């Protein structure tokens, strides 16, 4: 077990280093001149040159990368010699647009992204696994066919269309829910958990419609397969209650692929549900990334991309560990 964790952590660090290096390279190769972008619209060649120095872009590429990585471990000075400012740990650079510390921008966006992710996650896991299990237990029945059909449609609904439709229906026409506000980003805020749910319910539904569809499919397929296996027949023939067989034996064994998907999707979602955040104007990581990408604010886009990759990679490792906890047949080597 210990060796497994150590080995996975080792490969995790390597993968993260590679991801950060590649992201850094891609963005450096990127626009014709980040310095010009940082400098603004009316910028004389001299000022562009100054901006290059200020951004450290006169340095060799590897030095820039090393500086960037150093900032992840300690505070560092940033800017042109003579006009340096302190970039406090964890230093991810400063925004071209606002000169704000990128880590602060990310810290501000995270609660919104968490709020979006947690509710959507619960909603789609419950509906996806629940309906998938129901379909598997009633295999071949009209209920099963209906659920499978609904999943096919659900997986084909693009977020922009569902999102805008939900806004139109529940906010604009029926006035059942308020339009999302920036003031609520936690269930423990002054407005209370009710306002938090009302604020994020539509984004949760928009995400859950799309995601639960694939959970239904995967759960159904795997449960049908598991219910056909020998150990289930053994459990039944021992005279165990059907409920015990289904949940204690069947679900534990058949749910592992769902755990994989869940881990990957949590990782993805923590990096920012770009479209959903944009449609519902939730200022989380995805929303911030879109605006940074459009305005050419490289340090912000780069940091969010790396952070998102970090979440995906960590989620992968967590999934492997969760496997062993859930499925008694899996033993970590």
């Amino acid at each position, binding site marked *: 077990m210990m060796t497994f964790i150590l080995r996975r952590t080792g490969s995790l660090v390597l*993968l993260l280093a*590679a*991801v950060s290096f*590649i*992201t850094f390279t*891609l*963005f450096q*190769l*990127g*626009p*014709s001149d980040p310095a010009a972008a940082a400098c603004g619209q009316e910028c004389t060649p001299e000022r562009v040159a100054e901006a290059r120095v200020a951004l450290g872009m006169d340095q060799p590429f590897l030095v820039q990368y090393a500086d960037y990585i150093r900032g992840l471990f300690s505070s560092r000075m940033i800017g042109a010699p003579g006009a340096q400012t302190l970039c406090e740990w964890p230093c991810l650079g400063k925004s071209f647009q606002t000169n704000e510390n990128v880590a602060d921008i990310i810290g501000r966006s995270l609660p919104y992204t968490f709020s979006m992710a947690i509710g959507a996650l619960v909603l789609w896991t419950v509906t996806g696994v629940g309906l998938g299990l129901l379909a598997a237990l009633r295999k071949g029945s009209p209920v099963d066919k209906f659920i499978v059909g609904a999943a*096919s*449609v659900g*997986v*084909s*609904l*693009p*977020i*922009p*269309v569902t999102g*805008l*439709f939900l*806004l*139109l229906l529940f906010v*604009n026409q029926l006035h059942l829910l308020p339009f999302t506000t920036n003031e609520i980003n936690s269930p423990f805020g002054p407005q209370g958990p009710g306002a938090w749910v009302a604020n994020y319910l539509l984004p949760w539904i928009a995400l859950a419609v799309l995601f639960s569809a694939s959970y239904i499919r995967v759960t159904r397929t795997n449960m049908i*397969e598991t219910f056909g296996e020998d150990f289930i027949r053994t459990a039944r023939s021992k005279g165990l209650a059907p409920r015990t067989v289904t949940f204690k034996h069947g679900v534990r064994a058949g749910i592992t692929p769902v755990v994989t998907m869940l881990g990957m999707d949590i990782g*993805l979602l923590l*990096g*920012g549900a*770009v*479209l959903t955040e*944009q*449609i519902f104007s939730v200022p989380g990581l*995805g929303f911030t*990334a*879109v605006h*940074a*990408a*459009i305005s*050419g604010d490289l340090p912000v*886009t*780069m940091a*969010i*991309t790396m952070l*998102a*990759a970090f979440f*995906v*990679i960590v989620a*992968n490792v967590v999934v492997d560990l969760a496997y062993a906890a859930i499925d008694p047949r899996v033993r970590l080597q």
Partner: protein
Amino acid sequence: MTQIQSVEPGIGSPPLPPATSPEAKAPAEARSLLATAWMRIRRSKIALLSLCVVVAILLFAILAPVLSAMSGNDPYTSNTSPEVLDDFETPGLPLPGYMYPSAQHWLGVEPGLGRDLFARLAYGGQVSLTIALLSTVVSVVLGTVLGAAAGYFGGKTDAIISRIMDLFLAFPHLLLVLSLTPILQSRLRDTPLGEGSFLPMASLVIILGFFGWAYLARIVRGQVLSLREREFVEAARSFGASHLSILFRQIIPNVMGVVLVYATMLIPTNISAEAALSFLGVGVKDPTPSWGQMLNAAQSGNWYLSDPWFLAVPGIMLIVTVLAFNLLGDAVRDALDPKSSR
């Protein structure tokens, strides 16, 4: 070993296939593959229906110039005269006679600029589908070749390609695609690809194609690992066929089934991705129409709140298209993938 066999072909074993068999085999495989798929798809009503819808949508896009000419419209001419667009209450909103389908404007006109919605939907289909299909081709070619190479050569080649696959799978696609598209566009601007409306299309094809290959490559690699030990590969090797020839004439034709399945499933993903990026304002931009751009237009200025019609036109088109391709993909998988048990 190879020499002995080529000196005494077929002794003590079934006669080896003639030397021309590799060339002859590839097209036969491909044909029988499609024939098998078609035979099974024909039996399912849903599959047949989705195939018809896909063909209809493709025709709709291909015939865009003909169809819009029939109503005497084109996707670019705007008409902001007060007879068409409201000037008082909600400036820019089409007046009742122009909002909804009519003989002159089959789907009404667009708010703000008064361009013909039907023409934009049809031409937009050309753009959206071209991007989706071409980027799928890019991903499939990359994924098949790299996956097959990793599985066939093994060792260091496999290790390198597999690590690159892991990296690509770890990257948050939408985020990276989103931030790299403007960068790529500024790079392409001075190249032959950078002309006018062609630029966003080319950059989307490159980026979506480049980020979509890893998953397919992983699956192809798995298939090839078992294929390379099979007798027909051994036979080709014993004839002295080169690695490249074995790879392209023996191995790849045999994974075409899996490739076809994943290609069909990649198309709707790419259609959605184009819609998402153009919706976010980094893909296809006005005046070039695409289904994502039309969604963007419906949202900007909150026109879809003034009338749901502007959301419904591109939205329903998008849903029907993605659904039809998804169902067709399921059908192709059921027909060709022995592992799917349905």
